């Protein structure tokens, strides 16, 4: 997780909203990629969960984009996707073939926690009070997202005493 070329102390509300939209967009795309990977590797339950996460990120992104449009219309932006590296998007390394729904949810929880950490770390540098309020709101929403994933985790039946992993052969040489 990192950013490049963003001066948080001079971030305007318009750019902060754009940044938030881009963060959601990045996360949505990554969850879609993860869902594709799971479908590719015949792991439909994890795929279904990642699609659900992609939808949530998209919804949140749309809300933020609508706010931005109301406040600033189509004024240009000074932030773009090249400035973000995996803020709320789960790291590629989080995915695994045949991951259980629980493992998929834990990966999502890790990235929501990561995003929360991003807003917490950025807040002290922010000068503009409106941006500060927005970042506090986004930080708190990340906690809500974590709760959402935790609620999904709670719905899972308890893990079987013996895990599927124990019945999987080690990768075979060709």
């Amino acid at each position, binding site marked *: 997780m990192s950013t490049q070329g963003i001066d948080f102390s001079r971030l305007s509300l318009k750019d902060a909203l754009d940044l938030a939209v881009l963060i959601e967009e990045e996360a949505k795309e990554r969850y879609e990629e993860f869902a594709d990977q799971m479908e590719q590797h015949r792991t439909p339950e994890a795929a279904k969960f990642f699609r659900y996460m992609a939808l949530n990120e998209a919804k949140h992104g749309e809300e933020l984009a609508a706010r931005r449009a109301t406040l600033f219309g189509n004024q240009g932006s000074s*932030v773009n996707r*090249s400035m973000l590296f995996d803020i709320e998007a789960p790291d590629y390394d989080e995915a695994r073939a045949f991951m259980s729904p629980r493992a998929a949810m834990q990966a999502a929880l890790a990235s929501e926690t990561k995003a929360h950490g991003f807003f917490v770390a950025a807040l002290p540098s922010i000068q503009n009070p409106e941006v500060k309020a927005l970042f506090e709101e986004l930080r708190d929403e990340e906690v809500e997202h974590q709760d959402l994933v935790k609620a999904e985790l709670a719905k899972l039946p308890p893990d079987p005493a013996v895990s599927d992993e124990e019945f999987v052969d080690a990768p075979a040489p060709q």
Partner: protein
Amino acid sequence: MSATLEYQAKDYKSELKPIWCPGCGDYSVVQGIYRALAAIGRPPHEIAFISGIGCSSRIPGYTTAYGFNTVHGRALPIAQGIKMANPDLLVLAAGGDGDGFSIGGGHLAHLVRRNMDITYIVMDNQIYGLTKGQLSPTSQKGRQTCTSRFGSLEEPVNPLLYMLAYGAHFVAQACPTDLAGMAAIIEEAIRFPGFAFVNIQSPCVTYGEEAQQMKGLKAIQESLKALGHDPADRLAAMDLAQQYGTKMHLGVFYRNPEPPATYEQLVRERQAEQMKNAAPRERILDLFIKK
């Protein structure tokens, strides 16, 4: 930084969905390549992306550049042919440690001494991934695999030191543990006027060793910039490169501050020189007529 880049990373992403194992380091590498290409801003149709065979060698297919997934170990000869045929193309070559340092290892020295403006990215995972986990030339001594049940008896090659010793003018190392750094290094390598080599430590989550996964790599990573390394100092670069396998240095080991002419430039100069004394086209046959 401008907010409206002419090209964005997504413009270099193809419709083809990668079939790498979930978690494979190569997913991050292709992202780094998209970002570097967007920063450079050449349209996809002006880019030729050539690879050999291996999991990593699937990479051109996941980009919108013209691509050729060639023959095992033969990315570099084909990339050179393409560069000679059309020197205006941006030519990228990529592949795995097996592809580049084993079966294709003989081509490295010759491309280095020819110095064509090609960027070569190796996804070094210390294993043959595609063929399901045999020893590769960068596997550590003692490594147990299906072809080395009792541990490898061979010393690994050191690709960084090899390339520096061959005389490469740009040698760097990157890793998905630092995505921003990786994209910047790939961009710098592409911008370098001449042959550029980037070794990327890209974990194989299926057959790779624990120590070579993201967590293990993070523990041994060290930024060359933070160490105060001067990339113009080739001997210092060789010194640092010796730690390949124990430390993972990230950044540019060596960048020749005065890059020599590329092979393509020399060929153009030679052609221009020869043209001065060349017979006019309509008199060419006269050269073969005995006076």
